[in-house]
């Protein structure tokens, strides 16, 4: 069943192609599902873009429930596991809903494996990503539209704010989508409002007071953010500060705004400013987690943050407010009692007594989160209301469960599942968590001792004296004892740990996680399948609140009571309200923009004009002057499959080149017989110069062609500087990126460097190089291609990339490793002997040690 306004929206988009932007939580997934359903019934070939596995699963569920189409038309995902022939046979069935992995789709479109003229419709999910015309999705739509003008495009988005982060982004997205209509469905639209007002349930917002320590903690974090902001404004007079206030700094989009402003002068931005921006990001994270996590996990989180921050650079970390943050976080766990202070001074090591494993002077507090107790009383109230027979009655009315608690992530869910058991649970839970924290600290101490012992033993070994194994055991035993004595019920702890389940055993209460990426679908799905009597929203959630409205209108016969827990006067609340405001504001802007929008008509002629306009903006004339009809000028270029993630192939296509996607073993682009290009982004350059990979790649490159080129691609706006300002005043550093690059060119005088600051520029340089070479003269490809695309060498790029980063793995042995072992997991579980045959003994040892050694203590100096 779908609601009135959903039907209207569907009708609109079915009649004419367009971009449909729907308010969060208003059921865009149901509109899409219905659309796909209708299309599938017409027995046509439909393609889907940006549909995740998860999404497809929901879609399948929808089909199963509605049962109006045959199973062979069910959505299918086509990824690298299908061979070219298999894909071809699927395409030629010419029906059903296919979601093809982007790179494969580009490949198939370029080589005309897919019969484009048979594709009747393309459904685009998450259309907000198409505001960025470097996305591969834009290329796909372009290729498809070129091969089949009649193919209709229906795009959906529910992130209105993304379209208002710059000028004319909707128009840009629509241009990329090649649609002319914009449909807006905000929550405040009359049709939506009327429909949802018909039956509105009861929502009780419960304001929970923060503990004084929590309040001062968030105050300290805000203070630190404020300090960063002031400093940022002071240092960068040129940036527009009107939007840079602390309210905006709470949102991720703040980074976007500020980076956008600094982009044109990024090469002049001091490292101090860059650090400030990083600091703000870190602090925002800390702020979010300060209300979200319990006191122990938060402390744990804070410790890991300090480890990842460069303490010498980070400004807030060493400041007074930074210290405050740590003090408050600590004070929620323990306080030092004053009486024992003198005692502590005498003995430097933490003192253990038989009663507890913690230092004597530490008084453990473990402040529970205030929401827990509120949750408890709420649940009790609900139980009282619906006791016994009453509940049976409700079941017969159609309710599925008593209470759903919605949380935002899995860790909260696991936490709550412990908490809701009984009134005493919170204490217990915190104690266990704290115990874990202490354990890792104790382990660290033990390890330090062990290492020390080993070192002594080693040195003694050197002199021919037997090591004393007793030493190690002693240490372990001691820590074990301490732990056991602190927490008497250690066995239950172990048991709990092993039996943690995603589904919960607590009767009548379902705890459901709604993560940002799936919230729009899952919320309604859960409600529809569980049909609760009560809903508790543990963390305020604007998408969910709308979904509850939608749900209530669907099932008007089942009254629902909703409780929302929110901290009073907290950042959490601010953020929630601000997000709603922000969305409404974005929609208002979009409505205004829609009024003044110049609708372009998509035909060949305007397309060429478009190209010209786009490129002239970037000061490149040549690209624009080549239009689609003079395709042959460009000739053919071999492009590595992996490259399709970037915009460059798309731009080369603009210059009129014919792209041939292959998997190359040498280089990324082959422009002609004599020009091979290896593309490296700045970060890739740095890491591959360090790992030694670039050296062997360049060696290969130089053997195979006359003009081997290394393309160095700088991030947009951050151009042409390899060293930081501070590096330049110091002495020559033989291992800096600059020095390594210099050394590389000294040893390969044949290597040509191409420096690029944007993909547009890159495209035009390629065109210039290609134009001075004989047309269509391409080398024999067989020797350069790893394999044909049907059985690619390395399918799982991220696994192989990671593998190459691991100690003991080199270009030399990576081939062996991939042949012998199935996955990184298998590799890490192998024993040393197994490794030795593939790695070589020295590397095997290095690798094994890396995998099995324990991370150094993150808590050093925190429990003095």
């Amino acid at each position, binding site marked *: 069943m779908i609601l009135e306004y959903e039907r209207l929206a569907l009708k609109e988009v079915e009649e004419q192609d367009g971009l449909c932007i729907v308010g969060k939580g208003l059921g865009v997934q149901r509109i899409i599902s219905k659309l796909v359903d209708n299309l599938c019934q017409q027995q046509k070939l439909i393609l889907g873009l940006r549909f995740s596995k998860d999404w497809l699963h929901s879609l399948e569920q929808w089909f199963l429930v509605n049962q109006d189409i045959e199973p062979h038309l069910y959505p299918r995902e086509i990824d690298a596991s299908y061979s070219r022939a298999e894909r071809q046979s699927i395409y030629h069935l010419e029906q059903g809903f296919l979601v093809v992995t982007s790179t494969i789709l580009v490949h198939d479109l370029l080589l005309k494996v897919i019969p484009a003229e048979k594709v009747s419709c393309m459904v685009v999910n998450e259309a907000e990503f198409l505001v960025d015309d470097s996305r591969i999705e834009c290329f796909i739509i372009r290729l498809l539209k070129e091969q089949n003008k009649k193919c209709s495009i229906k795009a959906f988005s529910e992130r209105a704010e993304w379209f208002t982060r710059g000028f004319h982004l909707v128009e840009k997205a629509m241009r990329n989508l090649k649609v002319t209509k914009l449909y807006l469905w905000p929550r405040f639209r009359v049709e939506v409002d009327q429909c949802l007002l018909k039956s509105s349930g009861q929502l009780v917002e419960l304001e929970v007071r923060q503990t004084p320590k929590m309040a001062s903690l968030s105050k300290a974090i805000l203070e630190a953010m404020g300090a960063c902001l002031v400093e940022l404004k002071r240092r960068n007079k040129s940036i527009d500060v009107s939007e840079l206030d602390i309210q905006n700094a709470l949102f991720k989009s703040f980074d976007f705004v500020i980076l956008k402003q600094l982009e044109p002068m990024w090469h002049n931005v001091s490292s101090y400013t860059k650090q400030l921006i990083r600091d703000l990001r870190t602090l925002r994270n800390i702020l979010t987690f300060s209300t979200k996590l319990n006191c122990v996990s938060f402390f744990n989180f804070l410790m890991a943050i300090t480890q990842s921050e460069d303490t010498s650079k980070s400004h807030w970390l060493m400041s007074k407010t930074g210290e405050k943050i740590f003090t408050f976080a600590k004070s929620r766990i323990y306080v030092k009692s004053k009486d024992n202070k003198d005692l502590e001074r005498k003995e430097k090591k933490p003192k253990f007594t038989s009663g507890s494993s913690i230092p004597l002077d530490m008084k453990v507090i473990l402040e529970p989160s205030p929401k827990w107790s509120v949750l408890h009383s709420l649940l009790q109230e609900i139980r009282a209301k619906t006791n016994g027979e009453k509940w049976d009655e409700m079941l017969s009315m159609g309710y599925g469960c008593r209470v759903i608690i919605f949380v935002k992530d899995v860790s909260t869910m696991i936490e709550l599942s412990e908490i809701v058991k009984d009134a005493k649970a919170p204490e217990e839970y915190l104690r266990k968590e704290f115990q874990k924290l202490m354990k890792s600290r104790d382990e660290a101490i033990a390890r330090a001792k062990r290492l020390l012992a080993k070192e002594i033993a080693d040195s003694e070994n050197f002199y021919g004296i037997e090591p004393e194994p007793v030493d190690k055991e002693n240490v372990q035993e001691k820590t074990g004892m301490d732990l056991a004595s602190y927490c008497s019920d250690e066995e239950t702890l172990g048991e709990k740990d092993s039996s943690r389940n995603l589904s919960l055993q607590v009767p009548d209460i379902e705890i459901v996680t709604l993560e940002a990426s799936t919230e729009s679908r899952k919320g309604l799905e859960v409600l529809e399948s569980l049909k609760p009597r009560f809903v508790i929203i543990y963390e305020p959630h604007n998408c969910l609140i709308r979904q509850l409205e939608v749900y209530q209108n669907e099932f008007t016969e089942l009254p629902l009571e909703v409780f929302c827990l929110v901290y009073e006067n907290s950042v959490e609340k601010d953020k929630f309200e601000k997000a709603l405001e922000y969305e409404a504001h974005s929609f208002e802007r979009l409505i205004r923009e829609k009024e003044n929008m110049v609708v372009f008509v998509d035909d060949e002629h305007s397309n060429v004009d478009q190209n010209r306009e786009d490129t002239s903006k970037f000061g490149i004339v040549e690209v624009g002057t080549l239009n689609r009809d003079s395709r042959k000028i460009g000739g053919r270029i071999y492009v590595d499959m992996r490259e399709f993630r970037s915009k460059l192939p798309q731009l080369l296509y603009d210059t009129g080149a014919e792209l041939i996607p292959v998997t190359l073993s040498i280089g990324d682009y082959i422009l002609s017989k004599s020009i091979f290009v290896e593309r490296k982004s700045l970060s890739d350059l740095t890491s591959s110069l*360090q790992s030694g990979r670039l050296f062997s790649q360049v060696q290969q490159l130089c053997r195979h062609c006359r003009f081997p080129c290394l393309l160095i691609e700088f991030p947009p706006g951050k151009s042409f500087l390899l060293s930081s300002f501070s590096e330049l005043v110091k002495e020559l550093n033989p291992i800096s990126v600059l020095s390594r690059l210099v050394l590389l060119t000294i040893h390969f005088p044949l290597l040509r460097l191409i420096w690029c600051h944007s993909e547009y520029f890159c495209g035009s340089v390629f065109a210039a190089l290609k134009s001075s070479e004989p047309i269509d003269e391409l080398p024999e490809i067989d020797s350069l291609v790893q394999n044909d695309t049907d059985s690619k060498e390395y399918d799982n790029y991220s696994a192989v990339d990671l593998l190459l980063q691991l100690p003991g793995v080199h270009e030399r042995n990576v081939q062996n490793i991939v042949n012998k072992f199935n996955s990184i997991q298998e590799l890490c579980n192998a024993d040393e002997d197994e490794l030795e045959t593939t790695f070589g003994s020295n590397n095997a040892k290095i690798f094994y040690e890396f995998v099995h050694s324990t991370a150094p203590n993150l808590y050093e100096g925190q429990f003095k």
Partner: protein
Amino acid sequence: DLIIAQAKANHFIVVNQATQKNNPLNGFIKQVLWNYGNIVPDYLLGRYTCALFLRISQHLLTPQYIYDRVKAIGKQFRLRILVCLIDVEDFELALKEVTKLCVFSEFTLIVTRNEKEAARYLETYFALENKPTDVLRERTEQDYISKVESALTSIPSINKTDAMQLIANFKTVHALVNADVKELSKCPGIGPTKVQRLKEALQMPFRKK
């Protein structure tokens, strides 16, 4: 010529007296010695290496200049460098031309926006001319934390903070690699996308089928 002989023995950089006399860049060459001399290229950086220097602003005024200079050097020297300093905002067309020239005349192009860095390139070329490639062939030693960091951050969408959260929670790489979805999601900041990416890199096979 004595100066050139000394320069070739790697005593100092020779700066072209005629063309680079008033170049403020020379003032930034501080780490190595330099001297004026009568040479064909702009800078002589050792026995086999020479360099030309070009400002984009200058190129925009006299486009023919650099072509003549490149031609004059021809195929002398094993390594020919062209240091290009970008000192105007509207540089794309000029840089494209220079890039093309360098590729086909077999010059190694160095581009920078900063005079100090341009000088640093010259110094480095001079200093490293006779150095072996060892630094390039093998990776540098890192401590445990940065090893873990560089490994994990090679996975798309995993950043430094995530890497630290992960290793702090699992303690060993072995444990991390064997973790399931639930355990991974327990780490603060690790959402479903990141979990998916982690699983793909750590547990999925290198090759599909």
